[in-house]
C-alpha cells in the first residue's frame, strides 16, 4: 500500500522525476483553466444562462458571501486567493471518484505548499492593510511577553493546516484500500461517499481558516 502519491513514479529523466502528485496537480490545473475558459468565453447577461455560467456564478457568489461574512470587509481583495484555494482543494478531493486517480492533496508536499502560501499571504495582506509598523506591533499584543507565543502560534497553525488536510485525505484513500481487502462488496462505496463529504468539508475548512487568519491580521485594533 502506498502512503503518498509521491512514491508512484511514472517517468524519470536524469534527476527529474514525474510522480503522481505532480501529474495529477497538472491535470487539475489544466481542467480548471480549460473549464473556466470554455465557460467564460461566451458570458451572457440575459435571462437564460448556460449551465456552466450558472454553476460558476453560484460558486463565486457563495465564496464572496462567505468571505465578506467572515472578514467583515469587502471580498474583492481576498476572493482570488481564498477562491483558488477552495476550488483547487475541492476539485482535487472530489475527483477521487474517478478510478485510477490519486488525490494530490493526499501528499504532504502539496498540502505543505498550500499551507506555506497561506503563511506568506497573511503578513502580505496584513502589511498592505495596516502598514509595516502596525502589523508588527500586533505580535506584541496584548503585552510584549506574548511575542514568542504569537510567533510559535503562527508557525504551528501552518503545520496544523498542512497536516489536517493531508491526514484527512490520506486516511480516506487508506480506509478504502483496507476495506477493499476485507469487505470488497458495497461497503467501500459507502466509505467513498463519506470521503467525498469529508473532502468537500476539508476544502471549506481550509479556505475558511485561511480567511480567518487573514481577517485577524488585517483587522484594526482599537486603542482603549
Amino acid at each position, binding site marked *: *500500500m502506498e*502512503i503518498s502519491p509521491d512514491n508512484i513514479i511514472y517517468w524519470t529523466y536524469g534527476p527529474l522525476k514525474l510522480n503522481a502528485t505532480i501529474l495529477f496537480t497538472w491535470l487539475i490545473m489544466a481542467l480548471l483553466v480549460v473549464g473556466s475558459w470554455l465557460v467564460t468565453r461566451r458570458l451572457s447577461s440575459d435571462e437564460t444562462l448556460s449551465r456552466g455560467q450558472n454553476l460558476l456564478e453560484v460558486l463565486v457568489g457563495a465564496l464572496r458571501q462567505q468571505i465578506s461574512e*467572515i472578514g467583515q470587509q469587502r471580498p474583492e481583495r481576498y476572493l482570488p486567493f481564498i477562491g483558488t484555494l477552495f476550488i483547487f482543494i475541492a476539485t482535487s478531493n472530489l475527483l477521487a471518484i474517478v478510478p485510477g486517480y490519486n488525490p494530490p492533496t493526499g501528499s504532504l508536499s502539496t498540502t505543505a505548499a498550500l499551507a506555506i502560501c497561506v503563511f506568506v499571504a497573511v503578513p502580505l495582506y496584513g502589511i498592505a492593510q495596516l502598514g509595516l509598523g502596525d502589523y508588527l506591533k500586533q505580535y506584541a499584543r496584548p503585552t510584549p511577553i506574548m511575542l514568542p507565543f504569537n510567533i510559535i502560534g503562527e508557525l504551528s497553525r501552518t503545520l*496544523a493546516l498542512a*497536516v*489536517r488536510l493531508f491526514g484527512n485525505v*490520506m486516511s480516506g484513500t487508506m480506509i478504502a484500500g483496507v476495506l477493499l481487502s476485507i469487505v470488497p462488496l458495497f461497503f467501500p462505496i459507502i466509505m467513498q461517499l463519506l470521503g467525498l463529504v469529508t473532502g468537500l468539508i476539508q476544502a471549506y475548512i481550509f479556505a475558511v*481558516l485561511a480567511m*480567518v487568519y487573514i481577517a485577524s491580521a488585517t483587522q484594526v485594533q482599537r486603542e482603549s
Partner: protein
Amino acid sequence: MDNLGWIAVISIAAAGYTIAIGSLGPALGQGRAVAQALSSIAQQPDEANTITRTLFVGLAMIESTAIYCFVISIILLFVNPFWNYATALLGG
C-alpha cells in the same frame, strides 16, 4: 527476542494505543461541541448560519489532534524509521 522483534512489537502496540487514546479526547470534545451547537440552534434558529460555520471551524481544530495521532500511528506502522534503520543494519 532480538532487537528487530522488540522494535516490531513496540511499534505495533504503540500505534494501536496512539490511535485509541488519541481519539478519545477529540471524540468527547466534538460531542460536547456539537451538543452545545445544536441546543444553540434550537434556541436561536436565525443564527444557524453563523453557528454552523463556527462549529465546522471548531470541529476541524479539535479534530486535528486526532489527525496528528493518526499520522503518528501510520508512520509507526508503514514508514517506521527505527525499523528501517534496524533492517538496514542487518542487510548491510
